[in-house]
């Protein structure tokens, strides 16, 4: 992860050791498990195609409470139930909240694996620092996540199209209305059996690129998985869908930097202006995009393969549009936990200021390189245990 202003200032001042004397993290050894007397397993569709995303919750959740006095309390696994939250809680007014998204897979060998969950927990800690929420220990958090996955393992679809989505999240439950740090916080985990996130047609997704809608900007929090990055996108997604698009491709700044698409990172595999085949994606050092775990995995694999140039650099909508028009773009795909990788077929490019109203076609699925397919097969192969890659696979024993 590249250092930038935020990391260097924050680590100097809010280092863990100086912050408090006690319960700087919660501990797995303190875990209290209260099992649900009943199960909703029977009500969950057996057909993974009908699961959708984020609609069916399993029986239990993790809940950990933090207070300024005592630090972290004991983690609890308990039947899923409503939070009781003071109506003045900062999470409800000022968006003081963050989350993570990861998956547990039922492997072809019957083993259950989490995919690089330590990456998610490290990102969660960074988000927590930026959101002024309390810190915690990665390994303790992972052990608690193992425990809930183990307890809910029957909810993991035994299908290569399904997984148990794991949603750790944090919020400020402090009931004082000042826009400030501190006070009561919660760390919690929900789990959902999920199918595939998108059901686009075979040719891939259609994206709306319009610089009139902006997700993140230099000096903001676009690189953190804070709830505040999502609320503003709901309305824009609605507008995009109205125009026949599946997702919004986010541009940022005067020069229209290409940053993300939907809630995913994006990759262009093209012949660059020097005539080299190159996989290109925007750099996380810009602070404009989320450092995705799938993104990181795609880059690492592509560099290992060493068959074409792999580049992280800022590129503009102008460059991309020109390359598409010159038929230099082999493939354009997005990456994320929900979909792994998803090909794109079309970009609707509107830029009122520059008088642009284009439809750009990319024949990603027809590419002779089949790069996105190879990436998809490799990553899902690792996730479902067909391919060994130990440091990316955390096995949860039942």
């Amino acid at each position, binding site marked *: 992860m590249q250092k930038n202003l935020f990391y260097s200032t924050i680590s100097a001042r809010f280092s863990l050791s100086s912050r408090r004397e006690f319960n700087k993290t919660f501990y797995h050894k303190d875990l209290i498990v209260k099992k649900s007397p009943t199960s909703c397993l029977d009500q969950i569709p057996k057909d993974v195609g009908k699961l959708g995303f984020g609609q069916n919750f399993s029986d239990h959740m993790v809940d950990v409470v933090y207070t300024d006095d005592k630090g972290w309390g004991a983690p609890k696994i308990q039947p899923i139930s409503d939070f009781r939250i003071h109506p003045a809680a900062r*999470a*409800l007014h000022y968006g003081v909240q963050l989350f993570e998204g990861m998956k547990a897979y039922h492997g072809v060998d019957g083993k259950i694996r989490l995919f690089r969950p330590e990456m998610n927990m490290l990102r969660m800690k960074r988000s927590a620092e930026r959101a002024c929420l309390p810190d915690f220990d990665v390994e303790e958090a992972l052990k608690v996540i193992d425990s809930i996955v183990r307890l809910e393992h029957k909810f993991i679809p035994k299908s290569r199209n399904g997984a148990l989505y794991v949603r750790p999240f944090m919020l400020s439950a402090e009931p004082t209305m000042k826009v400030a740090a501190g006070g009561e916080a919660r760390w919690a985990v929900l789990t959902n059996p999920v199918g595939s996130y998108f059901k686009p047609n075979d040719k891939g997704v259609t994206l709306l690129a319009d610089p009139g809608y902006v997700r993140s900007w230099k000096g903001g929090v676009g690189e953190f998985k804070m709830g505040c990055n999502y609320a503003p996108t709901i309305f824009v997604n609605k507008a995009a869908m109205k125009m026949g698009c599946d997702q919004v491709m986010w541009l940022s700044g005067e020069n229209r930097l290409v940053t993300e698409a939907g809630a995913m990172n994006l990759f262009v595999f093209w012949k660059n202006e020097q005539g080299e085949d190159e996989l290109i994606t925007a750099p996380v050092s810009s602070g404009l995009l989320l450092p995705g775990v799938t993104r990181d995995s795609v880059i690492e694999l592509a560099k290992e393969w060493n068959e074409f140039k792999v580049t992280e650099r800022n590129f503009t909508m102008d460059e991309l549009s020109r390359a598409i028009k010159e038929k230099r773009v082999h493939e354009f795909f997005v990456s994320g936990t929900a979909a792994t990788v998803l090909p794109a077929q079309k970009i609707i490019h509107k830029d009122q200021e520059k008088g642009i109203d284009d439809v750009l076609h990319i024949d990603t699925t027809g590419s002779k390189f089949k790069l996105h397919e190879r990436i998809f097969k490799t990553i899902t192969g690792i996730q479902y245990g067909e391919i060994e890659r130990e440091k990316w696979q955390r096995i949860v024993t039942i």
Partner: protein
Amino acid sequence: MPALLSRMAQRLVIASPRMMATAASMQPAAVPEKEYDPKKTFYHKDLEIQLASPSQLHPKPTDPTKLKFGHTYADYMMTCDWDQDKGWHAPKIEPIAELKIHPGAKVLHYASELFEGMKAYRGVDNKIRMFRPDMNMMRMKRTALRAALPNFDGEEMIQILSEMLRLDSEWVPNSDVCSLYMRPTLIGTDPTLGVGCPSAAKMFVITGPVGAYYSTGFQPVSLLADSRFIRAFPGGVGAYKMGCNYAPTIWVGKEAASKNCQQVLWLYGENEDLTEVGTMNIFLFWKNEQGELELITPPLHRGLILPGVTRDSLLELAREWGEYKVTERTLNMHEVKKAISENRLFEMFGSGTACVVSPVGKILYHNKATDEYEDLMIPTMSSKYGIMQKFYDTINNIQYGRIEREGWMREI
């Protein structure tokens, strides 16, 4: 379905990106003929009131002037649920209690939330009044549209707020330096983790007495001005009172506090345009380069600042008084520094519901060219013009009923 689509199309046209800025202007929309439709709004006439038992009533503060903001709440809250199928349910006023929210609710993951801040005052004539509540309701409706949360009728809401004030009237402090802060809030509550339009929502209102902002006279604040941090950007939601505009500022506020600054002066862009201060709008009173006395504040049209009710009120008053030029235009740090060095900047102050006006005494400016911090002293407190003081006195006089002003005060 066609009806839904055409409604959506209308909504989308209203708030297409280039329209955002104009939608942020403060003009009231024409009130259409009303017919009962819970898909469109909740109704005051459906209000259910559950009175508090004696044990649910809390002791009133003995010295309201000492109350800190947002720590003490009155006895009652309002709640009203909405879902996609039925629309709005009956609004309720009940004793304040914890909300029950599904842990998968959108408000807890994607900040599907927005709020308003407004106040009720006990006047010198012992009558309780709200200050321009229609302005807050219009802004709340605009914010709801941008946040993909349900719409409602502002006047119905104001009537329900009035009902709350009647029930909690003892919580409106009997002091002309205190008030009852009111916090209407709208959150997305459906427990589905897809980042999509909420299919269920909850409106709620809590209130709490707040003490004197200036117990020992005006306290000038120091501001950290560092263009490496931004609050809002074009194409974003800075013009809306959505929760998501606030969480990112907390860390920057801590950064400011570590440099002995109480607030952040939010700059934007290459030219370091001034936008807001803390959670307030900003005003300057200076002699401009043409030698005219001028009150100046950044404009709304770029969508970078919140259209404040106090901001609007100060502009309206200043234009009425006609004593100096009143300008809404983009203003950058270079101009401010130049005016300071030429002794042309007389006053700088924030404006907001909490304090009416807040004088600025100093700016700690991070010079991006040299990467060094510079102290810029602002002579607000020693200004001979007394512009800020006159605003403060006038608004206070209106709020506490010492001056009558048609259309601004809503009596209960």
